[in-house]
Each structure stands twice: as C-alpha cells, then as structure tokens.
C-alpha cells in the first residue's frame, strides 16, 4: 500500500497541470462546503444564544392556557406565581412575565399587540428594562426596532393603549416610548410592547399573577408546578433546529452539485488515464503487479486528488475561513424577513468534526469514482496493454 501511495503520488505530480486543475476544483468544493456548513452552525449557535439572551433564558414555565400562536388564549393565560418559585424570583434567578392582549393607536392607526409586563430591574434578559424605571406623565414602554420601523415610531412618541382588565372592562392609557431595542429575535420585537410588571398587574387587576416564568439557572432540577407547563431550552429552540434542518437539506443540493462537478472531473481523468495509459498498465503488470494491484494503484491515484485538494484547501481556505469567522457574512437581504432569530451578519463556526466529516465525505466519494472506471483494468489483457492497444 505504501508503494502504491508513493507511485500514485509520483504519477499525480508528474501529470502536472491536469492534476492541479482537478485538485483546485476539488479544493473549491472543500472550502465552500465547510464555509456553508460553518455558516449554518454559526447561525444555529447565534440564534439559540440570542433567544436565550432575549426571550427564553435557560427555560420557562408556561401557564397551561398559554399558546403563543393563539392571541385569544392570552385572556386566560395567567395565574398567581406558585410559592415554590418565590425564593428564586427574589434572588433574581427567575423572572415572571405577564402577557395581555391590547390594542395601540399610533398616529391614528390601530395595531394589536401583546402587552408584556416585566420587572424593570430584571437581568435575565438583555432587554433595556431599566428604561421602564423612568418618571413620565404616561406609562413608560420599550419596543423593538422592527415594530418601531413598521409603525414609524421613535423614542419619546406617545400613543394610546387600550386593554381589558380581569373583569372584561375596557380601559385605556397614554403610553410613552422610553427606549427602542434591537435584537435578532423578531418574535420579541413584532407586535409587542413592554411596560413595568406592577403597572400592568395594576391595570389588569391581576396582582401577583404571571403568564410566563423564565429562569436563568440551567443546572437546577426543575420540578413540576400545578397549572404550569415546563418548557426546556431544547424544546423552546426546537423551531431553530427544524429550520436549520430544512436549510441543511436545501443546501445539501448545492453540496451535491459541487461534489458532482469535482467527481465528474476526477471520473473523466480516470477514464482518460486508463484509455491513454494502457502501455503503462501493461508495464506495471510485466514488472510484477497483478491486475488487481494496478486497479488499486489507479484508485489510490484518483483518491489522492482529494488528499492534495485538502492540502491546497488548507493553503487558501484556512485564511478565508478564519477571516469569515472574524468578519462574518452579511446577508444580502433583510434578516428580519426570515421571521425568526437571525442576525444580519452571520459568523461561521467550524468544528474539527465538521472539517473531518467533510474531508471524509470527499475522500470516500473520490475513491468511489476513482475505483469505478479502474475496474476495467482487471479485464485487460496484459500483452495487448503492453503494446498500447485499445481494449
């Protein structure tokens, strides 16, 4: 085998430009596949990190009536915070949120919103809730940049909020925007306003009640709580996993096309080699190779393209991939249009597993397409091959 590698290497290097063209095409596949996979892994990491920091913490308890996809459930999705969580809430490791259906009237228009009550002193979320602790003549509120853009709202703008209290009575108040935040999580920025928890509880006559309980300690054992449904971080981020999976399947088509092009080049080279190098094949046999060993030699020779490609990829791919990991890739379209946690600039994340699995896939694919045409050698007549006669 060592001899086959040595000879294959000599043959490949000796073939000159033809080898390097194949190697370059293959190395391009290596770099693009690793880069795209890296972007997906980076997106997954960024989306989950942003969701953790802005929306879900390390997990949540949902009021059993709460359904994020049905705003009509909000009327009944609240209950007193269970006593078993009091200590954790007082320590700041758990944050209750109260969600109420409301309507705002900015600039004479009407918009349904989820009014979210949140403690201004919380530090589980990156939301600038300290801006809710502002003395104003109206109820202070913070909103996301997406909503501000859609409704053309700015810091300091006033508008009316209408809601129904626990008895079903409509009421209204003036709201002032004290801050506009920008996250990469559209679900917390779209049709949502944040006001102080105590104010909302008072407005709705739901003192001591909450819709969601978000915790920050991922290590702690999470007990059952009556009337509440525990949602782990994995469950809450499953939508990201699903989307990444969908994207991965879609992008796999691109990998397949790239690999196919590279494999086609290798396959053609192998077919041409076997056609052109019949005399050489005969010589190998005359000098002591069996036909099967010559098949092995040609297979190793073809497969070695992928090893050379890995080296060439390292030469120009490593600097490119490292630069991308640092500078990121800015999406050409508005990331918020994706409707889920996604930054405008994605930072690829590469793991050893990603690089090794890519190399393995390419090496195996190259070996198969190298072996395939080489099988013809096993049927060759060595005496005809020695004379270079086409068989």
């Amino acid at each position, binding site marked *: 085998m060592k*001899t086959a590698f*040595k*000879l294959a290497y*000599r*043959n490949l*290097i*000796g*073939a000159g430009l033809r080898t390097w063209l194949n190697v370059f095409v293959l190395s391009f596949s290596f770099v693009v596949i690793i880069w795209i996979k890296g972007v997906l892994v980076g997106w997954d990491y960024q989306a989950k990190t942003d969701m953790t920091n802005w929306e879900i913490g390390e997990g949540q308890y949902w009021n059993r009536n709460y359904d994020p996809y049905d705003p009509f459930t909000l009327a009944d999705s609240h209950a007193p915070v269970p006593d078993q969580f009091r200590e954790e809430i007082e320590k700041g490791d758990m944050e209750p949120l109260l969600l109420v259906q409301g309507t705002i009237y900015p600039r004479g228009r009407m918009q349904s919103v989820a009014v979210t009550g949140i403690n201004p002193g919380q530090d589980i979320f990156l939301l600038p809730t300290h801006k809710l602790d502002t003395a104003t003549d109206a109820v202070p509120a913070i909103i996301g940049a997406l909503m501000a853009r859609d409704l053309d709202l700015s810091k300091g703008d006033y508008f009316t909020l209408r809601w129904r209290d626990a008895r079903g009575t409509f009421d209204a108040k003036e709201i002032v925007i004290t801050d506009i935040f920008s996250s990469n999580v559209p679900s917390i920025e779209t049709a949502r306003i944040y006001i102080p928890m105590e104010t909302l509880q008072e407005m709705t006559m739901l003192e001591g009640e909450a819709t969601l309980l978000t915790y920050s300690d991922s290590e702690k054992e999470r007990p059952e709580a009556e009337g509440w449904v525990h949602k782990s971080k994995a469950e809450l981020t499953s939508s990201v996993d699903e989307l990444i999976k969908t994207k991965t399947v879609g992008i796999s088509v691109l990998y397949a096309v790239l690999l196919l092009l590279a494999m086609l080049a290798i396959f053609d080279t192998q077919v041409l080699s076997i056609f052109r190098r019949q*005399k*050489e094949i*005969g*010589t190998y*046999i*005359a*000098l*002591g*190779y*069996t*036909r*099967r*060993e010559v098949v092995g030699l040609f297979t190793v020779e073809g497969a070695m393209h992928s090893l050379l490609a890995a080296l060439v990829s390292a030469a120009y791919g490593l600097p490119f991939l490292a630069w991308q990991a640092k500078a990121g890739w800015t999406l050409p379209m508005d990331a918020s249009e994706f409707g889920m946690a996604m930054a405008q600039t994605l930072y690829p994340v590469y793991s050893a597993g990603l690089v090794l699995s890519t190399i393995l896939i390419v090496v195996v694919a190259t070996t198969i397409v190298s072996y395939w045409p080489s099988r013809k050698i096993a049927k060759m007549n*060595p*005496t005809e091959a*020695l004379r*270079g006669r086409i068989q």
Partner: protein
Amino acid sequence: MENSAIIKINDLVKTFPMGKTHFTALKEINLTIGRGEFTGLVGPSGSGKTTLLNIVGSLDTPTSGEAWVLDHPVGKLSARQAAQLRKEKLGFIFQSYNLLAVHTVFENVEFPLLLLKISASERKKLVMDALEWLGLTDKIKSKPPQLSGGECQRVAIARAMVKKPSLVLADEPTANLDAANSHNILKTMLKLNNELKTTFLFATHDEKVINYLKRKIYLFDGKIDKIIDQEGMGKQQNFN
C-alpha cells in the same frame, strides 16, 4: 526438469479466438533453454515469437501443453504467483522501452526494487550501480521524453537488470534504434550475460541482434523451424 534448464517447454500450443474460429499462433513447441544462455527466438512477423516470449514471461498462458520457467509451471500459476515470478525473477525489455514517462530515470530504474520492498538506502545503491553500468549516471534526474532512443533503451535495460533477475526477456529491443545504438545495447547485454551469467531470451527478426546470439531458435508459422548454435551450421537442428 533438467538442473541446467531455465525454461522447458513441452508440446505447447497457443490459439487465439478469431471471430467464430481460432488462430493457432504456436503449434506443438518443444524447447529447452539452459541457464546463462544468450538465445533468441528468430522469425518474421506473425511467426509466434512474441507470443512464446509472453508465455515464458507469464504474461500469457498456453492453450495446451506446458511451459516451465525457473521451475514454475507458468500456465498453472495464479495471477498472484505469476506476478511474484515476474517481480522476483524476470526482467523485461521492450521494443518501445515502456518507461514510465512521468518518472525520472532514477525512479524508473528504482521501480522493480520498490515492488520488492527493498530499503531506500539499498535501492539507491543498486540503482546507482545499474546506472553506472549503463553509463547513465548523468541522466538520473531526466525524464524519458528528454532522452534519446538509445538512452531510453539503456534505462530499460537498467530497469530489467537492477534486481539481478535470473532471466531477461527482450522483445525486439533494437527495433527503434539506429545501428550504432543497437550495437552498443547488444554489447552491454552480452557483457551482462558474460559477467552476471544472466540468461537472455530475445524475440527478434533484426539481423544485428541475430549476429550477437549464441543460439538462434527459428520460428516459422508457429512452429520451430530450426535451432542454430553460435558455432554454426554444424550444430543445426532441423524440425521440418
């Protein structure tokens, strides 16, 4: 098999399929070649000399009869055993040199030693010795396309001789060479035969080669026509 015999062929027949019929290339060949001989299969094109050489070289198998080469029944060897015999005991020299074009002269000559898994230092020594013998030490880094025909054939001889084989099979070794180069090549091979006692078996119809042969086995139409020893017609053996 006789002790001194390196090749012994009994009633050997070789046929090739030709459409729905068969073409008989070798007919009832009986032949013995001793160790250290400098012998040639002589005859016109189509007389069967290359076919016989290929069978002796275990590159082909007889249709019937038997051929013993270095105590190996070449028609009955497995592919691996035949390859082993070629690798260890046989050297080949071809009409069109059959050098590996992308390899240097050194690498071409080194090739058989690589297959024998000889250590790098030993390989280097043996290759340099062979190249020195053939006056090619100044060409070790050249590649075959950079060499003349005579130089290419000398590289091919070096490659055949480097592992010190018991038998060298040369198929029309001078066909692509001019007269001067042909004589040089033949003198070199004769010297190797004399000094190393390596057996040479040629397939040729070139008068220049025939004149150097110590024993000439004339083939005609797939049969041995006559065998002439170096001493002349006195030892001629007719098969007709």
